């Protein structure tokens, strides 16, 4: 009998400090995720946690982790060469096929950038895959900024707006991401666009409302949820909202469904 709860040992290849509390761990693995999926990361005797894939390639995967809990704190003590245990990949990721040839509007809050990072890099490095990318990325403050190198790179290729919630930074805007939604040139996108929103629950809620105010139809909006999980395979019940399981039916949801979900 196959045990879906049993993880496999994987070697940490590299650790990159993104910010004070966010590190990216590059792990050696043959698991092939799709953009927006997540895995269960675990350390025996400490526990397990669901973490989204922030990049992947042949034989490796990146996880950008915030040290906010028991498991993630312990992962931060690891060094390259140490072992992490993985199982997955789980859930439904971004519908990238549907995004082909579209004008993409991607709006992120904080580390919400991690679950869209691999997709943004794919857009960036696959000319003609999408028509255009409008990126709005907000962070709480300067210490919270992640993927500094890529933000620079995306600025060259995408129509990018970067903002800090209340602090000032040269070349950056100040304000919540919701303030920049009406500034998107929605008319120029015609009907050929899709919107991706990822961040903390309140940020996603208000950004969704703001997009609707700008006339964006629900079916063009996509969000990614984060919930407590023990199993990631639809058994433990922690991530269930109404009739959906975030681990099975999400983490990516279309807004037509997401806006009705009440925790």
């Amino acid at each position, binding site marked *: *009998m196959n045990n879906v709860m*049993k*993880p496999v040992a994987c070697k940490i290849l590299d650790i990159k400090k993104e910010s004070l509390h966010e590190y990216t761990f590059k792990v050696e693995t043959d698991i092939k995720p799709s953009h927006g999926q997540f895995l269960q990361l675990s350390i*025996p*005797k400490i526990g397990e*946690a669901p973490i989204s894939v922030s990049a992947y390639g042949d034989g490796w995967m990146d996880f950008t982790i915030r040290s906010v*809990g028991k498991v993630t704190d312990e992962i931060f003590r690891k060094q390259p060469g140490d072992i992490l245990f993985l199982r997955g990949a789980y859930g439904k990721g971004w519908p990238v096929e549907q995004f082909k040839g579209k004008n993409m509007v991607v709006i992120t809050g904080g580390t919400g950038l991690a679950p869209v990072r691999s997709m943004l890099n794919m857009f960036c490095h696959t000319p003609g895959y999408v028509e255009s990318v409008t990126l709005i990325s907000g962070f709480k403050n300067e210490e919270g900024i992640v993927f500094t190198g890529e933000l620079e790179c995306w600025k060259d290729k995408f129509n990018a707006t970067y903002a800090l919630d209340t602090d000032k930074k040269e070349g950056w805007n100040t304000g919540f991401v919701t303030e920049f939604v009406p500034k998107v040139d929605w008319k120029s996108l015609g009907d050929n666009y899709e919107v991706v929103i990822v961040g903390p629950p309140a940020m996603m809620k208000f950004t969704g409302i703001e997009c609707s105010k700008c006339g964006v139809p629900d079916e063009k909006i996509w969000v990614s949820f984060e*919930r407590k999980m023990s199993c990631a395979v639809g*058994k*433990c019940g922690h991530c269930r909202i109404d009739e959906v399981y975030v681990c099975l039916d999400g983490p990516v949801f279309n807004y037509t469904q997401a806006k009705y979900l009440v925790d």
Partner: protein
Amino acid sequence: MGYKVSFAEVNKIFDRLQSEYEIWAPKRFVGKGRYSDTDIIKYDKVSTVEEIEFKDKSDYPAKEVLSPVTQSLFYFTEDEFRESKATGKKILIFMRPCDISAQHHQEKIYLQNGGYADLYYQRMNEKVKIVMMECTEGWDTCFCVSMGANKAEDYAMAVRVGDGELRVEVKDADFASYFDNELACEFKPEYIRKNQMEVTVPEIPDKEVLTRLKHHPMWNEYNKRCVSCGACTVACSTCTCFTTTDVIYNENSNVGERKRSTASCQIEGFTDMAGGHVFRKTAGDRMRYKVLHKFHDYKERFADYHMCVGCGRCTSRCPEFISITATVKKMADAIDEIVAEGGTNR
């Protein structure tokens, strides 16, 4: 085939069965109830028929045998994961029709949901054979007839208890040989046709009504009444939720295990994420979440029947006397109110 078997003979059969089977049944623990001078009835291993509690409903459901309150998933030695071993013997469980119906829900979640089968449930489930306990009277909190869970067909044997004897229907050929020397008789179990309590589960016509029901003030009542103790979900025949935790043995920090324990959506912390986000902050929110799961969300997902089997154990166990049947009635009234308002306001 049907048989009439004296308790003495049943015990002889139990003796023979026990070389191959563990026999589990509801058992009365005298004086072990939560209040002084009260008993508790819960599932336990039995070796004689006299140990089985036939008279009263068990306080806790049969699911505890298949999905124990806590179980070890893996043992760790440094960085090695070793899967916990399954029990060696086959398992024979005495249960009433509501508990048998509840196993379908357990199977749906543990074995089918998302296309993943849970090994720990699966390996246990494969060992189980069911003895149905005839149940024709019910108790004051039962509403199995309303939920369509008063009947069950998938059992190996069925029994009716009499004065010092059992009537036994043997359906599963594996057990036929145990009854070769017993007195044959006509016996088919009866089912309860009407409970003291009846419930009409309301239909929720559309998503708009559902959304308004979720935000209806009816749930606020539970902020005052519900103490979020989780007694209802522990006693529930169909709840399956669990939380996984790793533990380190005190004597040696290199050795430990990954365990899972029954979790309750009614207890604070069920949704808490690392970083501090909490999704259901009030008792009312949690009650709404549970009630809608049992009487709407589950059926919406699996397009089959409601999750609740009407065993009434949640009502019996609630220290605040919250009745699930009264709650469903309140929900039906709230839906009527929302639909009526919709007619005038839209």
